[in-house]
């Protein structure tokens, strides 16, 4: 009896992947927008046109000029510098929160799928339960206990990500467990843990990668919403959500102040969603073959 090497575990040759990827419109656009945000965040680590938190009341609400490319806000802070530094906060919150969600969500999902029975029931019912609390609500609860702040919002968004990833991991892993090559591995005497690591995880990796881009976009939106409500990143640390909040009282006077951070959030979320779409198309062998 010969056993087929499973199709999906065989990695796509890198060259083939990139050749196809660069022809995929939404992947290219999404990738470019995401890279733009990432570049802005990295750039802000070494350089911003002005110190982003420096207040200069005398030059508040200036229109765009050579010195301030997008003008200044109500405290005389440079908008470009704030946007760059805001990208840093956003990406940091996103990365840490998604990492929390990914670590716990994937582990729980894999355990549920490998153990089945009561373990699976408990984990999945717990996931259902935590679905009932959206990020904003859990952040408000956490803020009431621990006080508002960046850490609180990261934890809240991270917790909010766990059940989604748990469900996805468990569902995809269950499908893999039903496959013949897993049966073969079990027949060959491999333990559940080894099968999970060697066969299940590699086979659901592409699904997880796609989901991570979507979760990242959700995390960015949640961070902006929490900061807008005053529960996320605290002043004076720049954040797009807080910029929106500051701009709110000036809507009649300087509407552009709300447009800039709004556009930044839109670019980041759109970029990640397009990237996710592209990755889904490229990494899913079924879709790839249909083309």
């Amino acid at each position, binding site marked *: 009896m010969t056993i087929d090497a499973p199709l999906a575990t065989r990695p796509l040759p890198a060259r083939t992947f990139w050749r196809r990827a660069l022809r995929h419109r939404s992947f290219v656009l999404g990738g470019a927008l995401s890279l733009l945000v990432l570049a802005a965040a990295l750039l802000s680590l070494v350089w911003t046109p002005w110190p982003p*938190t*420096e*207040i200069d*009341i*005398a030059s*508040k609400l200036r229109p765009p000029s050579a010195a301030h490319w997008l003008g200044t806000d*109500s*405290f*005389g802070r440079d908008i470009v510098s704030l946007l760059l530094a805001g990208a840093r906060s956003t990406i940091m919150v996103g990365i840490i929160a998604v990492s929390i969600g990914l670590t716990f969500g994937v582990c729980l999902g894999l355990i549920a799928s490998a153990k089945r029975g009561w373990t699976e029931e408990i984990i999945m019912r717990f996931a259902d339960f935590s679905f009932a609390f959206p990020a904003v609500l859990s952040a408000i609860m956490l803020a009431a206990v621990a*006080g*508002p702040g960046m850490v609180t919002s990261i934890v809240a968004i991270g917790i909010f990500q766990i059940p989604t990833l748990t469900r996805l991991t468990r569902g995809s892993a269950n499908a893999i467990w039903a496959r013949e090559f897993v049966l073969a591995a079990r027949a060959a005497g491999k333990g559940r843990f080894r099968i999970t690591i060697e066969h299940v995880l590699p086979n659901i990796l592409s699904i997880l990668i796609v989901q991570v881009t979507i979760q990242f976009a959700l995390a960015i939106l949640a961070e902006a919403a929490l900061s807008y409500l*005053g529960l996320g990143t*605290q*002043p*004076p640390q720049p954040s797009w959500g807080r910029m929106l909040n500051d701009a*709110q*009282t*000036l*809507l*009649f*006077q300087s509407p552009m102040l709300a447009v800039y951070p709004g556009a930044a959030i839109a670019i980041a979320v759109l970029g990640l969603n397009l990237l996710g779409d592209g990755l889904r198309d490229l990494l899913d062998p079924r879709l790839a073959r249909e083309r």
Partner: protein
Amino acid sequence: MLRKLSIVAFAAMLAAAPLPVLAQSKKDSVVMAMALEPPGLDPTNAAAAAIAEVTLYNIYETLTKINEDGSVSPLLAESWTASPDLKTYTFKLHKGVKFHNGEPFDSAAVKFSFERNGAPTSTNKDKSLYQAFEKVEAPDADTVVITLKYGEPNLPFLLGQASGSIVEPKSAATNVTQPVGTGPYQLSAWAKGSSITLSKWAGYRNASAIKLSKVTIRFISDPAAQAAALLSGDVDAFPRVAAQRTLAQFKADPRFNVMVGGSRAKTIVGINEKKKPLDDVRVRRAILAAIDRKAMIDGAVDGFGTPIGSFYVPGALGYVDTTGINPYDPEKAKKLLAEAGVTTPLELSLKLPPPSYARQGGEILAAQLAKVGIVAKIENVEWAQWLSQVFAANGPHNYDLTIVSHVEPFDLVKITEPDYYLGYNNEAFNALYKQIVATPDEAGRAKLLGDAQRMLATDAVAGFLYQPQLITITNKKLKGVWKEVPQFENDFSTWYWE
């Protein structure tokens, strides 16, 4: 028979119908808005200024009334006399006044109210004043004699504040939710989180002079929503509106009357003197030297403020300009910190209540302090948290710095209170204050008041920032709304539609 009766009833309804229609054609109701919702409606047991904004002179009345120009006129008291040493005041009360629940207003109610305010368990914000009453006597139903432990020249003024509201003994305990007073208005509805409705009380002694039969007070804290509510016509009047940034638009609109008035308020950076190293006057002076008042006024209240150097405002008796005592000088601030042996960066907590002057001012303060090596860690808190953590007399005073506007007029006495949140507790100042209130003649008092202001400025008791100018925007046809704001209140008895 039944049918006949119903026909008669229907005819009667038809006949009666035109009356309310006629009454409505002459507008007699107003929708007013204010930023904060009061936590309750008993101004004698809590400090929130929002309580006075709803109740003072409307639901409750006081012995005296503070007018728009800061002068004092009779209200529940017809007249009063003071002894030469200003220690004994005799008030003659208005006769025939009743409370909303039908109980008579008399000297016993006054005695009850004042003794309740000064009781050990009292949470009145002017408790110290009422504890300074040696005795309150009621020789007959229309006379009240107050004997103070020291001379108090401002007593008639102080009794005109919301904390001096006269309550009715039997209903006093439930005033928080079911207020009973002698004023022209009664509470008719309170939709928590949204609005309070007051309706005219037919039993008021001068009911015919009260023009508005219904006043709805809505609570809108967000500045953008405040402007939108006025522009859309949902709100007829918004006293103390946070419209600094949209003022030009309102001034240009012929539908609105925009009034910029003075206040007796003092916006300050509260410094917790009980905490190290803030107990060192050099550190406090360093904080003051780091503050650029002009930038603070421009940034936090868009220029609507007058700089102050002490806990006292221009226009009050004996005001002296003390803004030059600890002027803006970041270099000096750094030197003072070094002298005090403080290692920089010095990390301090900065707890900010919700109003925009505090939140925006806090960011500016943090940026200014950062330049001299003080890291102010901003914590935005809600009012309830701020009151319990920072301000409450019996609270933990768990803060280093805060920003708040003290809206009460003549509240120098607060600084002398031992458990005041600033924690100054200076015997020399307390003695000076005693001397001030014991000086009957104005010139002498003015001189001493000058000394007091200089002492507070020199000791850097707080980061005295500015006297805010307050903006009131009303529908142009609504008249009688006050421009000047000696204290936070809305006297609906003077409001009417043109």
